[in-house]
């Protein structure tokens, strides 16, 4: 059974239909990526799954439970969270307080401290800047913080929305290494990316989103070699 199943999802902004009945699934242990051009509806899909945008039609099932109408804050408690587009770290809080916010649903104080220590070893830069105001970090560092913050809630399924956006090539590689690493430690990943080449290179399966509909899907390696995908998204 799929860990996350999206079925016939439709989302509207006012009168405009942004998502036109898409279906996809993420199985436990997979890295699945949703690729597509700017404005294809990737972020809308991600936000509607987490309850940030209301769903007009269709269902979202997580771990066998219908979460279509469950508010986002409760979804986090079920074990699914998201690193949102544009990172959206709390700029005015310290790095440490941002990590504490990530552990908002965790009650065990000792565990939280352990997790923070672990995150600060995983992301050295965060350890060094623990007491710094998060808004003063560089873009790449903020992305590390956003990922570390999401890991604090120990998600079974982690969704990442454009984690490489606006980063230097060095940080882009780093971000994908972290995702691979984190996946190995046992977390299922749903990745939305414009950097299709990178995303397909680490993913098991992929869906191509085109103006609100899924135009193609398959194993990541197949799509990586598909002529149409190559032309449209890989710049070859």
């Amino acid at each position, binding site marked *: 059974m799929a860990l996350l199943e999206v079925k016939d999802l439709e989302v509207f902004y006012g009168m405009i239909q942004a998502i036109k009945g898409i279906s996809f699934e993420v199985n436990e242990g997979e890295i699945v990526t949703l690729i597509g051009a700017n404005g294809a509806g990737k972020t809308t899909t991600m*936000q509607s799954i*987490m*309850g*940030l945008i209301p769903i007009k039609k269709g269902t979202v099932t997580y771990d066998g439970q219908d979460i279509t109408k469950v*508010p*986002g*804050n*409760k979804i*986090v*408690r079920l074990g699914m*969270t*998201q690193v*949102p587009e*544009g990172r*959206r*770290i*709390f*700029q*005015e*809080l310290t790095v440490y*307080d941002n990590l*504490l*916010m*990530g552990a*908002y*649903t965790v009650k065990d104080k000792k565990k939280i401290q352990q997790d923070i220590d672990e995150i600060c070893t995983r992301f050295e830069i965060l350890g060094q800047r623990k007491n710094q105001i998060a808004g003063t970090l560089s873009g790449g560092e903020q992305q590390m913080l956003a990922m570390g*913050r*999401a890991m604090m*809630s120990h998600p079974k399924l982690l969704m990442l929305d454009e984690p490489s956006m606006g980063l230097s090539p060095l940080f882009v590689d780093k971000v994908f290494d972290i995702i691979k690493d984190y996946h190995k430690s046992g977390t299922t990943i749903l990745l939305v990316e414009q950097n299709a080449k990178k995303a397909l290179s680490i993913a098991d399966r992929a869906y191509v989103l085109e103006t609100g509909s899924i135009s193609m899907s398959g194993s990541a390696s197949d799509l990586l070699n598909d002529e149409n995908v190559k032309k449209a998204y890989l710049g070859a």
Partner: protein
Amino acid sequence: MSTIMDGLSLGAIYALIALGYTMVYGIAKMLNFAHGDIIMVGAYAILTTLELTGNPYIAIAVSIVICTVSGIVIERLAYKPLRGASPLAVLITAIGVSFLLQAIAQLIYGSKSQSISLPDFGKVVIGKYAINVSTIITLVVGGLIMAGLTLFVKKTNTGRAMQAVSEDRGAALLMGVNVNRIIMITFAIGSALAAFASLFYLMQIPSITPTLGSMPGIKAFTAAVIGGIGSIPGAMLGGVLLGLIEKICLSIPAISPYTTAIEFSLLIIILLVKPIGLLGKQIREKV
């Protein structure tokens, strides 16, 4: 000296009210124009409980409870259904709630001013100055409350969540924060602070009318904007500043008739020079 003390204690009252405006603005992104009327609700609560029990401490406790509950009920009934509606609709609703509260008070207590007799603590002489004990109580208790609130916001999970919601509601939701609950808590805290403000206000001016809250409410709102709306230290600074200016102006016969004009002119000047207020944060528009 006694002018400064009076100014500081009036400033503490303004600051307590301004905190309610600024916290609600920061977290719920709305101007709660009914906030001033919570002071009036608190004042009548003290009056009635004092008449019934004769015990000022019970009266204070009851007033705090009634203000907190009114804050929560108003938020639930009037503002929560408008979450996501245009700011103008929310603003008009808030003004409506303000009129409603005043009308209810008028129905129950009539429009005539009623006087209240709180215990007189007398004066203490410090050096060559005689200072009202009530002024000192206002300063000390007001200061403690504000210090406590600052600690609460900085050090507790709920306080951190309040800061998070204020900065980015969606991101806070992704952390598992129940945004509605945080907004409710904010209204509760703001209204409880207004109850204290109401008590301190009555210690200075022991008479109550249904429109009692309007003037201190608008002054405290001014204080919140001067300090930078949305900023907690800003509300404290703005409140104290405005209280001091008011008492200093009132103590100089030549300018005392212009006191209110001077206070509001200060607001205009600050808005011209620094539109975000003294300690306000630059608002980042999401692109």
